[in-house]
């Protein structure tokens, strides 16, 4: 059976070149970078080269990169560290309703510690309104954290503008760039970011490694205590194999970025258009053009996401959904609710995120099997039936 992986926003396969690099640092250059002997020096060299590569892909200086265990740790460092760094100036913080949980839950934690947080709403495409941000800023606002690209619906936020406002007001600005770094251009200076989170396993690197960019001059407290690694900002012996893998992945991403953006945008548009042509009563979630090249997020009315995923999986297609039935909490995706979808429509959402191994044939295959699956599930749905027997709007108005 054909296997089509369309869940690249969840994780990506490790690039073969990256595997080779990691292998070298597991078997040959396995020293501790803090040691002064040749073993240590070799590991140190790999570590610092990786730092350069990771920094280069975001227009930063290598000294501004702190390696972490991944995006979640970096987000927590930035949000919690950023809030406490400026605690004396105020306790008001701003973020959006559609952030990743690594950011949202860090803010929830801060609320319990006595901070006040404004969660900006978004429009129906998932965009933060810059006006809303301006209005939310107070004299005691010290930190703004907005994601670059949303992980579910792929919407790209007006980060440059938001960053310019933060800069003008002297407010710390953090950008969660986990879904954009290595996939679209990310430049910390253009974005006016003081801190920026990136992750390795979203760009064909290994899991368990990421980084936080911290602009030179910005100081945030560290909550891990131990050795002097990462300039004391993140003590503990460095995950050298992971970090060099991340570096290699960043290097490859830099080379392929432009070509992949074009290719994935074309594939994505073919997928979305193909679905629109073949399947009635759907909704494309997220902004049409201000959108991550490889992201397609579509709601199919009258059906539920988990049963859709199971059916696709049986055909070898891997995707994800914002349905309540697929979340551990049994709540529908907070992102889909924030863009104004009803529970029912959020229920039938399907996220397909494309990546470097996907081809035209993959898209053709999805377009071939998806309509049948949707039709089958709809034929089992009591909501769909209602609509067939009663053409009057009122009969199914409750599902809108």
């Amino acid at each position, binding site marked *: 059976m054909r296997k089509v992986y369309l869940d690249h926003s969840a994780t990506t396969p490790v690039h073969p070149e990256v595997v080779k690099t990691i292998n070298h640092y597991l078997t040959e250059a396995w020293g501790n970078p803090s040691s002064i002997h040749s073993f240590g020096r070799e590991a140190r060299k790999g570590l610092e080269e990786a730092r350069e590569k990771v920094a280069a892909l975001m227009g930063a200086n290598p000294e501004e990169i702190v390696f972490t265990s991944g995006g979640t740790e970096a987000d927590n460092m930035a949000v919690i560290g950023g809030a406490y760094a400026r605690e004396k100036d105020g306790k008001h913080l701003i973020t959006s309703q559609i952030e990743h949980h690594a950011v949202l839950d860090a803010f929830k934690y801060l609320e319990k510690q006595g901070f006040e947080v404004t969660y900006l709403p978004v429009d129906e495409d998932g965009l933060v309104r810059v006006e809303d941000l301006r209005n939310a800023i107070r004299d005691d606002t010290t930190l703004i954290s907005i994601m670059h690209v949303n992980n579910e619906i792929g919407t790209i936020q007006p980060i440059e503008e938001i960053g310019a406002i933060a800069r003008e007001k002297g407010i710390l600005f953090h950008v969660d760039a986990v879904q954009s770094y290595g996939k679209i251009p990310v430049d910390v200076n253009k974005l006016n970011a003081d801190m920026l989170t990136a992750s390795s396993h979203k760009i064909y690197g290994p899991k368990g490694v990421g980084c936080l960019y911290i602009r030179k001059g910005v100081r945030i407290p560290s909550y891990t205590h131990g050795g002097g690694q990462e300039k004391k900002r993140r003590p503990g012996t460095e995950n050298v194999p992971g970090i060099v893998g991340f570096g290699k992945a960043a290097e490859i991403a830099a080379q392929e970025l432009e070509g992949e953006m074009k290719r994935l945008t074309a594939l994505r548009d073919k997928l979305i258009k193909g679905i629109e042509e073949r399947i009635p009563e759907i909704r494309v979630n997220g902004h049409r053009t201000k959108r991550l090249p490889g992201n397609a997020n579509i709601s199919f009315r*009258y*059906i*539920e996401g*988990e*049963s859709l995923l*199971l059916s696709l999986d*049986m055909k070898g297609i891997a995707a994800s959904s914002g*349905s*309540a*039935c*697929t979340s*551990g909490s*049994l709540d*529908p995706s907070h992102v889909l609710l924030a863009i104004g979808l009803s*529970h*029912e429509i959020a*229920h039938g959402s399907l996220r397909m995120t494309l990546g470097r191994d996907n081809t035209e044939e993959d898209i053709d295959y999805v377009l071939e099997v998806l309509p049948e699956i949707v039709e089958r599930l709809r*034929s*089992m*749905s*009591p*909501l769909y*039936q209602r609509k067939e027997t009663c053409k009057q709007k009122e009969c199914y108005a409750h599902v809108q």
Partner: protein
Amino acid sequence: MYSEKVMDHFTNPRNVGELENPDGVGEVGNPTCGDIMKIYISVKDGIITDIKFKTFGCGAAIATSSMVTEMVKGKTIEEAMKITNKSVAEALDGLPPAKMHCSNLAADALHKAIEDYRKKQAS
């Protein structure tokens, strides 16, 4: 995460659809995740002679609906009333803990259909 039986009932659900002139109809919505299930029954001499369902929900919800219809077809309404979400889940070789609430839906919809039938009989 699902047992083979669940996947079987999900892939080949038994008794999907609706009945033209049902003797009882039961519809329930799931307060936990927002799913909806509808069960139609035909009853003759106290026995459920035919049963159909339609479900808007997850794999477990579809599988439990299918299973419940299979379990009660040909049974008396008294026997059908004794079916619980637990017995449905057991018949499917178990459900993941997070999916137990979906089996409530099936048992509830069935019981509602029977109640509906009884009400119609009484009137």
